[in-house]
């Protein structure tokens, strides 16, 4: 997994790339959580994520819940087909914020 962060005002966009499984979830959290804790609205661009398993889904849930706790939000953007399929299998499309 690789990533790129761009910031504009209070919005931080994290472009994730590659495969997100148990092996990289800690790294993903290290990238995303500080942005949420800094009060940013975080946009996760998942266009280039080719694979995500339940560990990756857990990162999305934790990020969503942490942001909500702090009165902010994490928005999932340009979700790849394969990731969307897993989100829908977990019936999370109504819970996570997807644009």
């Amino acid at each position: 997994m690789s990533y790129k962060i761009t910031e504009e005002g209070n919005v931080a966009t994290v472009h994730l790339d590659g495969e997100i499984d148990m092996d990289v979830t800690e790294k993903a959290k290290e990238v995303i959580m500080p942005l949420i804790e800094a009060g940013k609205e975080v946009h996760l661009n998942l266009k280039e994520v080719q694979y995500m398993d339940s560990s990756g889904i857990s990162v999305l849930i934790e990020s969503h819940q942490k942001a909500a706790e702090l009165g902010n939000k994490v928005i999932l953007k340009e979700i790849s087909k394969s990731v969307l399929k897993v989100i829908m299998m977990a019936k999370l499309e109504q819970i996570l914020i997807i644009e």
Partner: protein
Amino acid sequence: MTLDEHKEFPVESSSLKEIRNFAREVFAKDPIFKSSIDDVILAIAEAAQNIVKHAYTGQPSGDTMRVEIKFDDKQLVVELFDKGKPAIPQNIKPRRLDDIRAGGLGTFFIGQIMDEVIFKTAATDWVNHLILKKNY
């Protein structure tokens, strides 16, 4: 087409990608898997992840796990073997989907994708033996 392939991998999270690649290479041999390949690979990877996470509680051990993929033209049988902590099948259940929290989804995904999931105590040198079946 029939398939009968196996490979062993170190029990560690960095093996998960290798396991997916191994499964992808095997399934690429028969076009019957084309529409389900991503789902079945997810199920296998979730099962392997459970070995790393639960049978070994994420601790490095030097052990390997074995993945076997068999197909007889009608049924896919994937078997995973490990020497970790013995699994207690009645304790392995997916979380309720309305209980929104991190974790507990892997077993749910496996159940959604595969037609049959069987936990066994391995009869050979292994400890746990998981059998995943899918009909074609």
